[in-house]
């Protein structure tokens, strides 16, 4: 878990007479655990984690549909889920930095849904899956070029 940073800003000192405002700090305790919609994500064995780490799904610019390549990547996940009925997954969608932030958040969600829908179509119960989006907020690759962008248009499964 990331540690939150205590900021010190030289400009922060003066409290203006007419425009009082308070600063709020989000501390570690405030960051809740990763449960969404009543589904808690199961802890995973190293082996499982390895399978999932390999199953990153990539997308074309502006697109949220699965390519043949991504379907390949998901086969392993599908099998894993069918073998072990206790596993639940967190499917996290992302987008590259181009375009507006909120639209990218929604696009990341669509990508996550695409992956979830594929797994459901392969016999996996929907309530074993949580989808969420980070839009462009968690890029894997920093940089404003095609390589970086293509790496960021992804869905990660955890």
């Amino acid at each position, binding site marked *: 878990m990331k540690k939150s940073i205590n900021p010190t800003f030289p400009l922060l000192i003066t409290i203006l007479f*007419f425009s009082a405002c308070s600063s709020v700090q989000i501390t570690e305790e405030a960051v809740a655990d990763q449960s969404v919609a009543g589904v808690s994500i199961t802890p995973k064995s190293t082996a499982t984690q390895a399978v999932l780490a390999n199953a990153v799904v990539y997308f074309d610019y502006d697109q949220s549909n699965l390519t043949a390549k991504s379907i390949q990547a998901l086969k392993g996940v599908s099998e894993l889920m069918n073998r072990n009925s206790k596993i639940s997954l967190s499917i996290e969608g992302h987008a590259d930095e181009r*375009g507006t932030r909120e*639209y990218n958040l929604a696009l990341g*969600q669509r990508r996550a849904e695409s992956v979830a829908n594929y797994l459901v179509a392969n016999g996996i119960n929907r309530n074993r899956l949580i989808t969420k989006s980070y839009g462009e907020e968690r890029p894997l690759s920093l940089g404003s070029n095609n390589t970086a962008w293509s790496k960021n248009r992804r869905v990660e499964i955890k």
Partner: protein
Amino acid sequence: MKKNLSLAVLLLVPIFSYGELFLEITKGSEDPYKVAITPFTGNLKASKQLNNIMRNDLIRTGEFEILDEELLLPVKIVNDELVYSDWKLMGIDYLVTGVIINSNNSLDINYEIYDIHKKKKVRTSKVFGIPNQIRQLAHYTSDGIYESITGIKGIAATRLLYVNEIKDSQLNSSYKLMLADSDGANEKILLSSSEPIISPSWSPDGQRVAYVSFETGIAKVFIQDISSGKREAVLSKDSQISSPSWSPDGKYLSLTLYQDGNAEIYILRLRDRTLTRMTNQFAIDTESSWSPKGNKILFTSGRSGSPQIYELDLRKLNPKAKRISFEGTYNAKASYLPNEEGIIFVHRSSDGLFHIALKYKKENFIRILTEAKMDESPSVAPNGNMVIYGIKEGDLSMLAGFSLSGARFKLPASNGEVREPAWSNFLR
């Protein structure tokens, strides 16, 4: 013969019936008001600071040209009247003079505006304040000058919200929701977090902020009171919520929910937290924003196959979304101009670059107003004359702005990167 004469008159006077000569002007060029501001007397140090701030405020509007200090003439008063001729010769339109009155518990400014063409004083004004408030007083004075001359309300005394991101040596990010004056001064931290903060939105009364925070692991909308820091999640649901936008009367918040897994727009009534669904179709619907009168909503929808701008009339019983952007394959994050004459939004041109664009309601083409590569998140000033937005210079994100009259300015971060600006309403 009378017939011929009146015919002649008619030819020259197509519209007016009082027999006035009627002429048509069809072309002109561009130029700001030329204003001279003499250093205000009374307190040398305060005067310098005041002058600097006012100068910057007025130049930033793009509608004023402030005479360089070196070129200022001494103000000549003869028989209680200002001697106008010298200023006239310099091509000055208006002269501003003033006095700073400083005492233990007050700092007031008296200023006067002279119309050089009309050869008379057109405004005497006083701004009341307290010591240590010189910046705010300067902004009030700038706004007073701007409004006296243009008839338009000034925005120097408004404020900005934006998000700041700093990466440490391990490239771990920390995020802050910031508040500052319209010129970027007086930065204050409203929220510090190790998780992303996006989409800050002002309440119309300027007392509260809504924003999206990822602190619980997913996107959630919070409302925070600026002075007390008190905050709460808008809905206790465990699902993702984003894209908050306040209604002009402050009673509603439009939001994007992902309940069926697809981004859809809802309106939340703050009083009792009841939700009303506004869109229901297979594609993305997000980035809602309200019209100044609160009867319409703009939003971005992917329903035509690519992001475009749509409008919903809330007065109708079953409002149908009306598409209003037709140029290009990406139009998003629209907001109305305060007079509803048009909209400002992000547009992707055919070369794939993102710009801030303007489309007037009665025109069927768009005007591209910026020229960097990845311009985003525009926010319109409450007088409709300026827009602030995010740009990327090299690797760094910063804020930039322009006035419709063509002025440009930049607001780089004091530390790290800044983005997602939101311009407040008028605060006084």
